[in-house]
């Protein structure tokens, strides 16, 4: 008797386990409802923007009766896995937010996304380096509508500048003079978290893009006319060593978040960084008088005007398995309109990829105006993240070695060339 009870108990326990394993996952609601009403699911990694996106899609739903948009956001760091699984199975989203450039390729190569060439109006006005983030490297087709643009520039603390009688520099000599003045006043001229390698290629491009030639150099490198050992590129990296004295002495020990605090607390007067910093600075230090400028042309610069390097950040695509492709295409068309672009600016506080958007935040508007005056690609992210090792990772580690005095500009450039040539063949 006792034995039977035990057996039954064990069977029940095992059965419960098996049942829970079979529990169906929540229905994503991607199937068409009765009649013409369609529910589109949109997935994103922007958990912090759920409310804003719901407001944005309310606008869409009002003008597009019959289509309901359901927005779901997942943890950023888990998103790639979640999306890959979702797209591979049958319960994926109709319209997924996808990464840009190299990180988008695995989804395209796996045939998970629908090409949208010629099906979406409004893509023509988008900057080429930005739309490149939505294209398949191998087939050159467009697979998504770019969401946001990130621009890279020098931020500065207006109050410190005013106290020191300084203004945003317009020539390289003025730029050096500003840094010297700050240094002698006991203020760290530039905050840089060189312990985190990913910020360093950003720094290198903010300082040196115009020196090596921005888009012009990009074309030459891609076609194979030159490579990273080019004298102009080496000279652009040399600027990093030239400016090292204006950074914290043990800069390679300083983490990225430390450098943010350094800047927002007023210990440092300038911060070379991406437009994604603006929201963080506004949160951390609401009183900070923030300004931004393009780093002026250094001597021997290939370009004749300063530039703002930029890249696309996030895209919206269509799941190749979606049952509601027509409605999804309608949504994508709307995502490429200035109306949505303006909502990106107002609701999400991001630079829209769509031209003709205005920004209420004056720092954003200032940075955007600068970008309009002179554009460049954030070269290593836009073009050199399509294989291992990533161009950004190689240069990040090399710049750290430069700061530590273990390698010079030519050595760093050579290592970058060796690294990317593992997978990059010019002219393809």
């Amino acid at each position, binding site marked *: 008797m006792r034995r039977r009870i035990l057996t039954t108990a064990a069977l029940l326990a095992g059965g419960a386990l098996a049942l829970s394993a079979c529990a169906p996952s929540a229905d994503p609601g991607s199937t068409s409802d009765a009649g013409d009403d369609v529910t589109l699911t949109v997935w994103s990694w922007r958990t912090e923007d759920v409310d804003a996106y719901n407001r944005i899609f309310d606008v869409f739903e009002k003008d597009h009766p019959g289509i309901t948009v359901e927005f779901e956001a997942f943890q950023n760091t888990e998103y790639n896995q979640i999306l890959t699984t979702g797209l591979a199975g049958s319960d994926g989203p109709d319209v997924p937010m996808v990464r840009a450039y190299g990180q988008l390729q695995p989804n395209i190569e*796996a*045939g998970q996304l629908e090409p949208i060439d010629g099906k979406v109006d409004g893509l023509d006005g988008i900057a080429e380096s930005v739309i490149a983030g939505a294209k398949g490297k191998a087939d050159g087709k467009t697979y998504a509508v770019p969401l946001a643009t990130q621009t890279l520039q020098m931020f500065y603390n207006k109050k410190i500048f005013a106290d020191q009688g300084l203004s945003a520099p317009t020539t390289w000599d003025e730029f050096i003079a500003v840094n010297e003045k700050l240094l002698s006043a006991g203020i760290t001229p530039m905050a840089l978290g060189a312990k985190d*390698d990913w910020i360093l290629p950003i720094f290198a491009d903010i300082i040196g893009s115009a020196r090596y030639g921005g888009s012009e150099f990009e074309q030459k490198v891609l076609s194979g006319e030159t490579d990273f050992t080019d004298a102009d590129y080496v000279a652009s990296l040399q600027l990093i060593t030239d400016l090292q004295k204006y950074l914290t002495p043990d800069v*390679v*020990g300083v983490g990225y978040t430390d450098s943010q605090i350094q800047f927002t607390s007023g210990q440092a007067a300038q911060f070379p960084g991406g437009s994604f910093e603006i929201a963080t600075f506004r949160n951390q230090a609401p009183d900070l008088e923030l300004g931004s400028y393009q780093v002026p042309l250094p001597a021997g610069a290939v370009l004749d005007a300063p530039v703002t390097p930029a890249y696309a950040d996030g895209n919206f695509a269509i799941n190749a398995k979606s049952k509601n492709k027509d409605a999804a295409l309608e949504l994508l068309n709307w995502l490429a309109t200035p109306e949505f672009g303006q909502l990106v600016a107002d609701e999400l506080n991001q630079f829209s990829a769509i031209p003709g958007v205005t920004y209420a935040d004056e720092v954003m508007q200032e940075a955007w105006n600068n970008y309009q005056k002179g554009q460049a690609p954030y070269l290593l992210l836009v073009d050199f993240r399509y294989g*291992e090792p*990533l161009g950004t990772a190689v240069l990040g580690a090399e710049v750290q070695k430069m700061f530590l005095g273990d390698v010079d500009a030519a050595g760093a450039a050579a290592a970058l060339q060796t*690294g990317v040539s593992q*997978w990059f063949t010019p002219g393809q």
Partner: protein
Amino acid sequence: MKTMSAVTTPKVRRKRVATGVTLSRRAGMVFVLPALVLFAVFIAYPLLTALSYSFFSWTGIVRGEFSLFDNYVTLFTKLPYSQDLPNAFVHNILLFVGAMVFQNTIGLGLATLLHRLQRFKRFFQTMYTLPYLVSPLVIGYLWSLMLSPLFGPVNAILRAVGLDALAQPWLGNPQTAIWVVVFVTAWQWIGFPVLLYGAALGGIPEEIDEAASLDGASPWQRFRSITLPMLVPAIGTVSVLTFIGAMEAFPIPYALGGSQGNPAGATDVLSLLFYRTAFESGSSNAIGTSSAIATLLFLFIFGVSVLITALLRRAERNLF
């Protein structure tokens, strides 16, 4: 079949009756089943799939053709793997050696001292074990804050007491960064050998020690010839677990040096290399290469663990 029937021999059955519960083989199987299912689904299956993945070339998540050892050859011949793999491997070994030195000197010493302690024994045991209970990621971030050259208290204290030369960018200098990882790992884990050694010390009969001291053995002689040999099983356990822990190290190196093993790869370890390859690379063959790394790592950990265990078994047999 012969071995199977051995299980049901009357001798064994009589032994089981003593536990007060009688189970048929079938009921026994039913009880084992849930654990077996969990093991199969969450351990055996992923292990075998990773192994099979590593023999294919991949485009995204679409499996390409069978490529036998191509992914493994890539690991040893192509940048960045040919450079990162040995670099990371050396750091894993350093972590193991460093942890062993810490645990078998300081850990064993603390355990011996605590064993002799009459009062506050529990208190100190808890104190030493406390870091072990905190998430290693949290420990890593706390230490990275403490060692920050801008705001960190470590350098501030060093400067305050006049040791300016020692106030370094500990995590920014490749020469010191890996030792910080070794130290923080050992610091967190120290409570573990203290507990294990403490338990083992408690298991040594006092009579032997007493007899030796009556025979005139000095405390050091007694430790050397009685305590240490009787601790060999515990030392073995600690060594194997430390080895596995050191080879799989991820959260502390990640918190201290990020996924790239900053600065300049100085804190890179094999798990970080795997993580980077699998989840951060733009390479479409990420699954193939990262599975190859995972397989190699598993085979190495498994092989060496078996070896250490076998060696220690033999050492134990020679002792007793």
